[in-house]
């Protein structure tokens, strides 16, 4: 039962990510560098922290495939692979112990970097993009990671409350 809430919440975040968030980001931020929100990724890393790595893997695969289908442009599987891998690997770090805000934010940064690198790697492997890694890192990955950390901090308290409630149920 309580898993259904998590599914619902992440699904809502998925919808918001492509429709509402583009309007919330000031256009000035999309000039030289590009800031991209990854709400689903943030949620999946939270799942890997508060639930376990297997749930994070399942969530990652499901919402990754959803993103692959909805925004199909080049190929299918990139986001499913990256999200699933990120969720699983992030889940390896902490057990179900009580985690404070600083380690979880560090893990969030690591997870974001891993995800960005995986997506970049897949597209680069299949020659879809050909921008050099240094450029992509400073202009696309780094700003996005910082922005997503901010998003993660914003939803930290409600997410924690939600998972604590689930834990008690």
């Amino acid at each position, binding site marked *: 039962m309580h898993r259904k809430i998590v599914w619902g919440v992440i699904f809502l975040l998925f*919808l*918001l*990510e*492509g*429709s*509402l*968030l*583009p*309007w*919330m*980001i000031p*256009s000035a931020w*999309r*000039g030289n560098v*590009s800031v*991209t*929100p*990854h709400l689903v990724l943030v949620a999946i890393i939270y799942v890997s922290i508060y639930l376990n790595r297997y749930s994070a893997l399942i969530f990652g695969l499901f919402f990754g495939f*959803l993103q692959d*289908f*909805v*925004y*199909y*442009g*080049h*190929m*299918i*599987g*990139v*986001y*499913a*692979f990256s999200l*699933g891998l990120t969720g699983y690997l992030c889940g*390896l*770090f902490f057990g179900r112990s009580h985690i404070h805000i600083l380690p979880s934010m560090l893990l969030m940064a690591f997870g974001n970097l891993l995800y960005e690198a995986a*997506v*970049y790697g*897949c*597209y680069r492997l*299949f*020659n*879809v*993009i*050909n*921008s050099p890694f240094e*450029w992509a890192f400073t*202009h*696309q990955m780094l700003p996005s990671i910082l922005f997503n950390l901010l998003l993660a901090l914003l939803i930290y308290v409600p997410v924690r409350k939600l998972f604590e409630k689930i834990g008690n149920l």
Partner: protein
Amino acid sequence: MFKLLGNKRLFILLIGLIFFIALMGLTLNKREPVTWPEKFVKDSISWMQGLIYRPARYIAGFFEDIHDLRVVYEENKALKRTLAQYARDTVRLNELEAQNKRLKEALGFTERQKQYDNYTYRIAEIVAVSPDPNNSTLVINLGEKDGIKENMAVVSVDGLVGRVVRVFPFHANVQPLTNLSDVSSGENHTKAIAATIKGKETESFGIIESYDEAKGILIMNKISQNDQMQVGDTVVTSGLGQVFPHGIVIGTVASRKVGAFGITYTANVKPAVDFTKLGHLREVFVIEKPEMR
């Protein structure tokens, strides 16, 4: 943590890796028709996204309007000036159009030839924008049921935005010009654009093949040495490629230099559409060519 590399897990990991690489490779140049689960998932999710996108757009539009109030007076003056010019041009255009029609009839043009550039512009709202800069797909709310087909050109009021890559019953995915690439293989992946210069349609020609993400410019190749194009000229589609209709503004020539092999020239084209603000685009137009039979 290193228990991860136990035999069974390593095996599963490798199988997963192989599966995903195979999947990506197989779907890279997908041309087969859209399957029904894909249609269903896509249309229902895009419908929900549209429900969110529309109010968000109105609210954002309201704040932009307040910002615009300051420039309205100046804009109004400029528009009145152009309106006078426009009225003069319309008279001349009507005259030329009538003459053109008469001459075509006199020369015995077939109906197909006459209808060739009679394009219809279909307005479409954007319902979602891909959150990833590497794959900046736009989702519009026109689809198969509205007569949208693959490879139709998509323009905004400023100029060419991209082309339709995948069509679902009620929605379609648009690939913007920022995804143009000359390295990737595959017939359906990106399509180069045959381009020319506005006002010099018969003398200038080049092919826009790729987009330089770092500089934000389109790269136009295969320009002949005695081409007269100059910096600041407006680049439009030539229609020779048969994918994009002719006469759509792409951008302006920013610079021009000798190409990689020294035989042809290469020009940098600054796109007319601001692709960094793709998320703030409201409507686009899909250009429907007349049925060619």
